[in-house]
């Protein structure tokens, strides 16, 4: 889906997922690593406040990624 949206609609996509090697294999261009498979955009074990902070940080990183010009598959680690 990530590739198809970029290819046919020309809209840049950021993929947030935990298993970066799979994103690399399927050909995502902008990648933000998630936390864990059951909870990619949060860390509920750390309590509600920390969970929300993790979520915000990941989303803000995704917004930054979507505005960044890239020339190759790029992982946004920070």
């Amino acid at each position, binding site marked *: 889906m990530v590739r198809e949206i970029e290819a046919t609609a020309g809209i840049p996509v950021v993929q947030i997922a*935990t298993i970066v*090697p799979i994103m690399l*294999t399927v050909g995502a261009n902008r990648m933000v690593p998630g936390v864990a498979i059951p909870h990619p955009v949060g860390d509920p074990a750390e309590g509600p406040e920390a969970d929300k902070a993790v979520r915000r940080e990941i989303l803000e990183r995704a917004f930054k990624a979507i505005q960044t010009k890239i020339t190759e598959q790029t992982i946004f680690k920070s």
Partner: protein
Amino acid sequence: MRLELRNVFVKDVQWGEKTEISGGVLRINRDETIAAVSNDQRFVEINLDLAKPGESARIIPVKDVIEPRCKVEGPGDVFPGFMGDPCTVGEGATLVLKGCAIVTCGPIVAFQEGLIDMSGPGSRYNPFSETNNVVLTVVPQEDIEKHAYEEALRIAGLRLAWYLADKCRDAEPNVKKVYEKGSIPEENAKYPELPKIAYFCMSIAQGLLHDTFLYGTDIKHVVPTVIHPNEKMDGAMVSGNCVSACDKNTTYHHLNDPVIMELYSRHGKDLNFLGVIPAPEDTRLSGKERSTSFCANLAKMLGADGVVISEEGYGNPDTDLCMNAKKCEDLGIRTVVISDEAAGTDGKSQGLADATPEMTAFVSTGNVNEMVELPAMKKVIGYPEAISNLSGGAEESLKPDGSLFVELQAIIGSTNELGFSRIGARWI
């Protein structure tokens, strides 16, 4: 380490006055047996049923399958950490009720359990249509947490497996098989010219009722370690997995691991079998990196020339599989992997979610998405409505006449990645 498996063949199972085996017939006193596994306050009710090969019977939803075993000589007991103390097992003698299986059954999670058909086309796809099955279903206390329900049913199944074997401990075995292998330096000295082979038994360790236990401990909390193959035959590894049925390793699979049996049969002939490395499949990328780095490094420190890697599950564990293969190959250790494929109902999609060029030797155990039609059975043990919640099933899967149209993955053990099944794939 020397272990003798004393196999007592079970040709039939019946209810009887006394729990015992004679002439290949296992008789079970139902009330006494229920009482033996009922010392858990989390159960409101416990039921036992029998399902025999060839019978028009469907068991659904299946949680685990366990072979009845108990130790008759040597330290500890089977299923260490559950039935016995968590002390090293694999030595002495173990009685096995061969041809009998305990099946635990219950709708613990809303999805991802499996079914067993004792006859018809579905029976071809799982080995448990050929065993005389004692099916344990329980009614748990209301409002029980799912993880407590899983744990209670897991332990009750192990206890039932031990109890039936224990009641037959004086039976004369039909076949005795000895599995013996010394320390790694001893075996290296005996077979200096043979290639040294290790075995990574990848196991789901993902929480949310997707867990595997080693000596009673949840392996998501441990880094990979080495065990002697005999330890697995005594129940060192136990399944706590409520996951897609086709390729989860039940406790029965762990006890009868065909990779171990094959490597053992060739030990000292054309290879030197170093040992087994239970390899957790984590939910975090960092956990996958840690686990696979430990596996590859352990293989290197053991002096392995090659590694056989079996996967459990599909999807994200495909990444663990690739990492294990890549990291070993990068260290100069040759690898072969055993995995099934999720290639779509037409079989045309990429089989694995991940890929790596170093993974060049691949044994496929089949396509989990293949559609199969399973006719209605006269007897249903368990909860037939569960089919709509099974992985590989849907609400419309259950037809009004009781037949099912489901993906192969709904059948337990159908694409087992230890190779404990009849299907595979060939290159076309």
